[in-house]
């Protein structure tokens, strides 16, 4: 694992690290709808990459297609060099991919503890205790809510639980879908800090989908812009943030 500088500052972009996720000329969709067309994207080990775009651009579909549901219509997906195209979802997840999905999808009638244990389902070497400890360190709130049912948590707590649950399997690649959606700014900050810390301290590779382009591009080493199912721009996060097209389209534009 490439050594990351300790401390809260974002780790330097690991420019030469080997690829964790490679997507080549991917097309996918649901039924008659083609949601993604000829998408190519790469995430290197230890990198935070963000995918920004408007509602309905195909961001969530891309994350779900990486997880094998829906299956790609054409193109290739490789995880750490191994081809995972067309494999069943559970098999892909067991190879070290975890997702905190759109809408969080907490199991409402399970306790916080059971939700976390579900996340450890694809943990290859048995003991979930250290992973659970890590989730508590990141989000102390989860420990306080341990025996509460998932459905009774607040939105922010559910988001923390969704990320904590995804981390339980010790993933190599973490997929995050709109973690800021519907949350108060303070909670959003807490969650983004946690992502930054995870990446810096453990070298976790993250692919982050966000509508909040400002936050996401500040956090990420690199970013991609998805418009109507196609990648239209890519580059280092802060460089994208400076581009006028991005400012106009995703950051409220105008005079600022």
């Amino acid at each position, binding site marked *: 694992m490439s050594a990351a500088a300790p401390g809260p500052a974002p780790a330097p972009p690991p420019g030469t690290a080997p690829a964790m996720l490679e997507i080549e000329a991917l097309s996918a969709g649901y039924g008659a709808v083609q949601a993604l067309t000829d998408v190519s994207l790469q995430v290197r080990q230890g990198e935070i990459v963000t995918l920004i775009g408007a509602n309905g651009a195909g961001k969530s579909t891309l994350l779900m297609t990486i997880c094998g549901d829906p299956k790609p219509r054409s193109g290739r997906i490789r995880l750490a060099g191994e081809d995972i195209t067309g494999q*069943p979802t*559970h098999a892909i*997840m067991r190879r070290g991919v975890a997702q905190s999905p759109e809408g969080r999808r907490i*199991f*409402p009638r399970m306790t916080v503890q059971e939700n976390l244990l579900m996340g450890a*389902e694809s943990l290859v070497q048995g003991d979930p205790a250290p992973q659970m400890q890590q989730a508590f360190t990141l989000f102390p709130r989860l420990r306080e809510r341990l025996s509460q049912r998932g459905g009774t948590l607040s939105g922010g707590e559910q988001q923390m639980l969704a990320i904590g649950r995804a981390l339980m399997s010790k993933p190599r690649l973490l997929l995050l879908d709109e973690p800021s959606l519907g949350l108060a700014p303070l909670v959003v900050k807490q969650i983004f800090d946690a992502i930054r810390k995870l990446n810096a301290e453990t070298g976790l590779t993250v692919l982050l989908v966000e509508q909040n382009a400002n936050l996401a591009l500040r956090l990420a080493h690199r970013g991609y812009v998805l418009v109507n199912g196609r990648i239209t721009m890519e580059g280092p996060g802060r460089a994208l943030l400076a581009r006028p097209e991005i400012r106009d389209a995703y950051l409220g534009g105008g005079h600022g």
Partner: protein
Amino acid sequence: MAYAMQQLINGISLGMIYGLIAVGYTMVYGIIGMINFAHGDVFMIGAFIALITLLLLQMGGLMDGPAAILLVLLVSMVITALYGWSVERVAYRPLRGSFRLAPLISAIGISIVLQNYVQVSQGARPKPIENLLPGGIEVMRDGPFVVQFSYIQMLIIALTLGVLAAFTLLVTRTPLGRAMRACEQDRKMASLLGIDTDRTISLTFVIGAALAAVAGSMYLLRYGVIDFYIGFLAGVKAFTAAVLGGIGSLPGAVLGGLLIGLIETFWSAYFSVQYKDVAAFSILVLTLIFLPTGLLGRQEVEKV
């Protein structure tokens, strides 16, 4: 008084059998949202396998004592579970993701197939057996009327309670049970956590069929006569029990089973035996109209 007492005993032991079948309906409904209308016939298969095993043991001269009953039960559970697995594999899995009515129709198809298969292979004549566990204990006596708690009824009640306790532990305490509940609450999320949801669904059918096999074997021992058609009526009554208890709720299925057993028994005892099925099915209609979520069913309010 003594008469009512006897009816209570009869009603509970009948209700236990319905409860065991109802658990199978409610489990499958919980996990894939469909009513497995072939489940009653899986119960009938369980009874027939118990019968065949019993006859084989008798031919071998090995037929006495509780050990034999236990063996009959185990064989029936294993083979019936295999039937349950096959039914799901053949008739439901290929239709997953199809429109909602499709698996319901294939369930009815499988039900007809199983009935006709048993009718052709085993004959249409009812199959009687002798009572394997005659006798019982005398609970009370009122003049000439003796209230009896037969050994078979005791066996049914004890066995059902034991099986249900084991089953409850399985669902609440084991990783498989957790996976089953996860699939029930959000199947897509379960697969995103690395759970093979097809396998979990298969295992649900296997467990439901094994419970139905226990019910089928108990039915055979208690009533001593079975035919290829018993699955229909018992199945629809157990379905009624599941709806009454709240479809999707496991304790509800057992409670509903007990209530249906008691209602049917008391109705037969005090009103009319001919109309006992009418009584049971009126409950179904009344529940659906006035209490659609059942006694222990969940109201569909969840925080998003």
